[in-house]
């Protein structure tokens, strides 16, 4: 053809895809190897998956150290492999590795140890990485799907349990609705701005006088879609059932990896929408207040640990969403502080949650999943290490110093207070004080109730390492929080330059 356009890849475009390509390749390798591996040798699939994730993490670190402080988009503006997305690549690799380490025993115990589990986890991680790197609404949508579809299947994985199917169906149907909302919002934004690129949308919104009706409608629909994905009130209804029904390691990845990836996308999208975000402050305020209150109050009633952690994760979403209120129309120190405290919160939240779910996995057995807190009576004395780890995770989730949870809350809340939302933060602090009621209940049962011997934990070395790493990270992030801040701010600044 005569009008053939010359198309050239940006320098380094292909090599910067390395982390996600490695993860995807590992997924295929696991699928292929599963065909020839003997049923008893599934351990090697776990080995492949962890090796792939470790390689992806190392490559991300190398790319990080070579990355420009300025964010560039690659592939005609579809992806931004900057310090922000590389930071998240690292986080997802670590999260998935820890989850796989606590999965193994569970899968064998429930007799669902098949290769597809590992492959689906890897596919989901690929989606998360895509989502964190999406610089374009089209890629954002594909990333959400690439992350969610494997997780829908993973929730339904343990089909012999009826709860699993129920949770999966609810998650799938509501997730599909959420995707539809997200897509509709994207379509309206595209209709008004004529572009799907986040950077171009930002420029458009900066220059526009605000008379474009479709922009606020589009942003509102996208808030609904994101709200479902992170489980914020009033879009949280699926969370307790899906979290309870899913296999515990899958719940762990839903509560951590999926949520972190959704927040990564929200941060990018909201920074792009920042010139128009002022009119959404009230909406966000209400969502945050509702999420924090409903999450914490509902968790108080739960004696089922998985449901309790589900509501607690709703409450934590609320705290994290509050940071978005501090986004200014133009990037400034206030936004920068809020975003780096949000990243710090995510990091702290990931470790304490994976740790808590890991302890639940090892305490349970095939006959008794040990999700009822009453079964944990006296556990702290019989199994001092497990008890201590669980107590640490619970205190950290509640936000007691010197754990990661305390500093995460402290930085995040002070960033939002600086933005002028003191009443909201007072509410959040009151609610997080109330949250000690249900977090401490676990500790009370473990240490102050006579043992009934209902649980027989079996701790494999792999799970022990995963729980130990989570516990150490929870402590380290709490004791030396400032060590991470330059790192986080660097990640943040690379997004700011994108706009």
């Amino acid at each position, binding site marked *: *053809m005569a009008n053939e356009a010359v198309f050239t890849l940006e320098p380094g475009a292909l090599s910067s895809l390395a982390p996600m390509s490695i993860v*995807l390749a590992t997924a295929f390798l696991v699928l292929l190897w599963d065909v020839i591996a003997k049923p008893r040798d599934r351990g090697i699939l776990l080995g492949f998956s962890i090796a792939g994730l470790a390689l992806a993490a190392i490559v991300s670190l190398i790319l990080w150290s070579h990355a420009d402080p300025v964010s560039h988009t690659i592939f005609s503006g579809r992806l931004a492999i900057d310090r922000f997305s590389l930071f998240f690549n690292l986080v997802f690799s670590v999260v998935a590795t820890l989850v796989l380490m606590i999965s193994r025993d569970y899968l064998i115990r429930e007799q669902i140890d098949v290769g597809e589990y590992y492959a689906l986890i890897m596919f989901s991680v690929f989606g998360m990485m895509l989502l964190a790197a999406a610089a374009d609404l089209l890629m954002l949508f594909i990333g959400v799907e690439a992350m969610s*579809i494997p997780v829908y299947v993973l929730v339904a994985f343990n089909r012999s349990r009826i709860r699993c199917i129920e949770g999966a169906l609810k998650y799938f149907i509501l997730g599909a609705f959420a995707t539809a909302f997200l897509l509709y919002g994207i379509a309206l934004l595209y209709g008004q701005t004529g572009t799907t690129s986040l950077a171009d949308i930002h420029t458009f919104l900066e220059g526009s006088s605000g008379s474009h009706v479709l922009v606020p409608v589009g942003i509102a629909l996208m808030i609904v879609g994101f709200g479902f994905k992170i489980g914020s009130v009033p879009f949280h209804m699926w969370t307790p059932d899906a979290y309870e029904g899913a296999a515990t390691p899958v719940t762990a990845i839903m509560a951590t990896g999926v949520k972190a990836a959704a927040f990564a996308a929200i941060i990018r999208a909201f920074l792009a929408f920042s010139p128009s975000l002022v009119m959404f402050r009230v909406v966000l305020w209400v969502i945050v207040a509702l999420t924090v209150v409903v999450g914490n109050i509902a968790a108080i009633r739960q004696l089922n640990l998985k449901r309790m952690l589900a509501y607690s994760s709703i409450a934590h979403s609320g705290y994290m969403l509050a940071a978005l209120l501090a986004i200014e129309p133009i990037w400034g120190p206030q936004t920068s502080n809020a975003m780096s405290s949000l990243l710090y919160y995510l990091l702290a939240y990931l470790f304490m949650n994976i740790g808590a779910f890991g302890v639940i996995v090892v305490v349970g057995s095939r006959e008794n999943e040990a999700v009822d807190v009453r079964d944990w009576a006296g556990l702290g004395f019989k199994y001092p290490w497990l008890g201590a780890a669980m107590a640490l995770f619970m205190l950290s989730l509640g936000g007691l110093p010197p754990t990661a949870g305390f500093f995460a809350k402290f930085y995040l809340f002070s960033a939002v207070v600086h933005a002028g939302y003191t009443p909201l933060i007072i509410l959040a602090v009151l609610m997080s004080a109330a949250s000690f009621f249900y977090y401490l209940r676990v500790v009370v049962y473990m240490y102050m109730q006579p043992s009934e011997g209902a649980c027989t934990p079996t701790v494999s070395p792999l799970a022990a390492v995963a729980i130990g790493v989570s516990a150490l990270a929870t402590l380290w992030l709490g004791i030396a929080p400032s060590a991470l801040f330059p790192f986080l701010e660097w990640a943040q600044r690379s997004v700011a330059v994108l706009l």
Partner: protein
Amino acid sequence: MFEQTMFYLFAIVSVIAALFVVAGKNPISCAIALIVTLGALAGVFVLQEAHFVATIQVLVYAGAIMVLFVFVIMLLNLGPEDLEKTPRFSRLKGAGGIFAAAGAALLAWNFVSYAARAARVGPGFGGLAQISQKLFTEYIIPFEAISAVLMAAVVGAVVIAKREL
């Protein structure tokens, strides 16, 4: 001349088949008639030089979506006596017909009144060459990522549908 003849041929076939879809008694023959309609429409698209749309029309609508339709009809498993009870025409169908006619009239009126100042598309617009060029340059990453999503979905579907893990 040839094009016009072909256009009328495809158009008449698609309209007659569409009428049969609405008025037919047997759901399966209605579904088959719908395939004929969609196939004839694909022919109309080809005459408009929209080869890509024509292919997709056959692959997606006449192929995948029709399989779904037939599947649902078979799942419902209506016997001859159920079919006897349903009238050939109903108020609902009448209302649908009126809406469809109104929509068609609006569309026709739009075509007639805007035909003079309609924007002309370039040569080869919507053709396979242009679409593939876009797909493998600007949209290469979404294209590849979508294929990974489809792969994950296929694996997931197999996992869910397997009798035992």
